[in-house]
């Protein structure tokens, strides 16, 4: 009996402790608490924490709790679930999928219009690049403030190319020149190493696809018309382009390509030393370079200069939850992150190159980040305004990925693939 009584006593004690722990959260105080949700790894979390400390020091009485998630996938799952239950964070990072959360968007309205807060003087938009503001402006409302600009690029393993005695690729080239370069390079590469990773087969391939359709003059999506300009024949030509590369042997066969998820430096064929050229966003240069002993550099997509097919975009945006209980403070915090030189010094170009002229004055802290800037200086003039994002971003990416894989593995022909892509585009637009 004694044992049982003891157990019950322990249980009682434990239950009380548990409820006490729960009760602690309910303390009322006059500190303002902001919750900031974003995704990223160790390095980014440390930088963000440093920025938070500065903000809290400048604003006593305000506490910012950061809620990082390992990846964007986890992040949105968590945020969606929290918001559905009425408990969403105050400041939420988003990517190119932010239109899913604007009024009328497929997920429902979550993001707050920031213009009124700029008018109140809480956010300084005067020093922000107009392109960055236009990026997140829909129907006269600003739904997010850019964390930084970046551009798509091709990344090359400079050391590897030099080691095999090949010339470096030109920064600017045409498709014909590029193709020839790949063939020449492949001849010199050892077996098992490919001139280029098959960027058409990657999970993130909607960006290269978007580039090519832009180059082709048939943008993926025009919001004003709620339509795509891509036809089955266009899509087929893109698939044929990579089929050609595959048959030449300058890109790996489908199963080898698929074994590199290309989501970050660890799953990159380039970093693994098995490809000389890959796809990269400019804000990733620092991270990738640090993962490699070989030196990397950036070059443009072929055909960029002749048709101004590249574009500058915003890496992420800071958005504010429209149901946040602390909207003014959230606005001030976002303004701090984007415009404060102190913040820029610790955040670096991890989330893109600063779009705020006063923050930019701080300069960049390391040569890798400088490479990104140099690239943007060269490629900048070869750009057009960014095309609208296809709605239902996640599903579009996922299904596009599947279609490409099916073509690459030989399950369907490029003609069929082309048709399926167009059907997919239309489905996503109509949803």
């Amino acid at each position: 009996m004694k044992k049982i009584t003891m157990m019950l006593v322990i249980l009682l004690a434990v239950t009380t402790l548990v409820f006490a722990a729960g009760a602690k959260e309910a303390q009322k105080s006059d500190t303002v608490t902001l919750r900031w949700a974003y995704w990223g790894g160790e390095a980014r979390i440390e930088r963000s924490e440093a920025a938070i400390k500065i903000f809290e020091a400048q604003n006593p009485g305000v506490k910012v709790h950061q809620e990082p998630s390992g990846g964007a996938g986890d992040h949105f799952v968590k945020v969606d679930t929290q918001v559905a239950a009425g408990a969403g964070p105050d400041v939420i990072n988003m990517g190119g999928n932010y239109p899913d959360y604007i009024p009328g968007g497929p997920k429902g309205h979550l993001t707050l219009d920031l213009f009124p807060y700029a008018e109140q003087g809480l956010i300084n938009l005067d020093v922000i690049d107009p392109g960055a503001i236009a990026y997140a402006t829909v129907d006269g409302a600003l739904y997010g403030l850019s964390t930084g600009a970046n551009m798509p690029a091709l990344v090359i393993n400079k050391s590897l190319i030099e080691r095999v005695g090949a010339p470096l690729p030109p920064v600017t080239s045409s498709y014909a020149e590029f193709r020839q370069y790949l063939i020449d390079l492949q001849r010199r590469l050892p077996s098992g190493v490919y001139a280029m990773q098959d960027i058409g087969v990657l999970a993130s391939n909607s960006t290269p696809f978007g580039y090519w359709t832009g180059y082709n003059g048939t943008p993926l999506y025009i919001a004003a018309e709620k339509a795509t300009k891509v036809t089955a024949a266009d899509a087929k030509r893109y698939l044929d382009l990579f089929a050609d590369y595959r048959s030449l042997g300058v890109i790996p066969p489908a199963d080898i390509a698929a074994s590199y998820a290309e989501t970050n430096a660890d799953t990159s064929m380039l970093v693994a030393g098995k490809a000389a050229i890959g796809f990269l966003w400019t804000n990733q240069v620092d991270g990738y370079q640090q993962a490699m002993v070989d030196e990397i550099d950036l070059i443009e997509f072929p055909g960029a200069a002749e048709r101004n097919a590249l574009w500058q975009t915003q890496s992420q945006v800071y958005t504010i939850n429209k149901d946040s209980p602390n909207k003014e403070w959230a606005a001030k915090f976002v303004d701090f992150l984007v415009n404060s030189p102190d913040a820029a010094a610790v955040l670096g170009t991890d989330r893109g190159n600063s779009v705020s002229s006063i923050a930019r004055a701080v300069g960049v802290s390391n040569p890798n980040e400088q490479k990104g800037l140099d690239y943007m200086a060269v490629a900048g003039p070869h750009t057009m305004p960014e095309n609208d994002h296809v709605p239902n971003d996640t599903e579009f990416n996922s299904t596009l990925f599947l279609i490409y894989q099916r073509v690459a593995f030989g399950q369907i022909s490029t003609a069929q693939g082309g048709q399926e892509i167009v059907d997919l585009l239309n489905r996503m637009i109509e949803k």
Partner: protein
Amino acid sequence: MTRPQRTVLNNLSSYAFLLPWLIGFFTLTVYPMIYSLYLSFTHYAIIAPPRFIGWSNYKVMFTSDDRFMNSLFVTLRFVFVSVPLKLIFALIVAMIMNRKLALIGFYRAIYYIPTLLGGSVAISVLWRRLFAFDGIVNIILRNIGWANPPSWISNPKYALSTLIILAVWQFGSPMIIFLAGLQNIPREYYEASSIDGANKVRQFFAITLPGLSPIILFNFIMQMTSSFQAFTQAFIISGGNGGPLDSTMFYSLYLYLKGWGFSEMGYASAMAWVLLLIIGSLTAIAFKISGGLVSYGGGE
């Protein structure tokens, strides 16, 4: 054998024992189930309120969603290959572990370690590396003469098999339960039958299997149920996309993708209910078949 009277008092005091479960059942199971059933008839993008669309989700699932049917087949293949294999290994190892060897405690722990790693991120990452084109498995295979082994993890024909191997590798849980069950078979039965001249094989079929039969049934149902819901390993090993070519797109993974990825919680809820029906039917069948095979020693 006398049975207790079915008096009102008797019933009430019995129900008292059931109270915690009943509360949990109604608030944490029934209410969410009803709510999710309702959701299955709606289009629900999580943040915006649900919009009623009738049977549409179910119709699409069975007529036009190829990826759904694919995920169903992938999962069925996974379940009906990995579960029997897992149970067989678990039983064999449990029987080996059910003896007095000097380091037996240590051995049991060793064989259980793979299961301890569970849905660990590290092990999934490792598995991917092991079975990659230039991974350890292929290095070994090349050394023993296989010139050009495929990239197991990124080849649509073999990717699922790597996941099956991963699942079977983690047979620790049913092994432990078998071990506990083996311990519960009275030693006298074996001693008596030895005296009667039975050999090990006969003992196995006459004593061990029947004695273990409630446990075998239990393990089978539990493993089947949880295999149908397998998610984490496929999620991490395929990078969340069920690839290559949807060959590792488990039912749960597709559900997750549809619900949270594509913001179709209504569709995901419908998928959940279909899964429930499938598992329910298979379990009922298993119980029916086992009725004649399973013996309960306690005189139920």
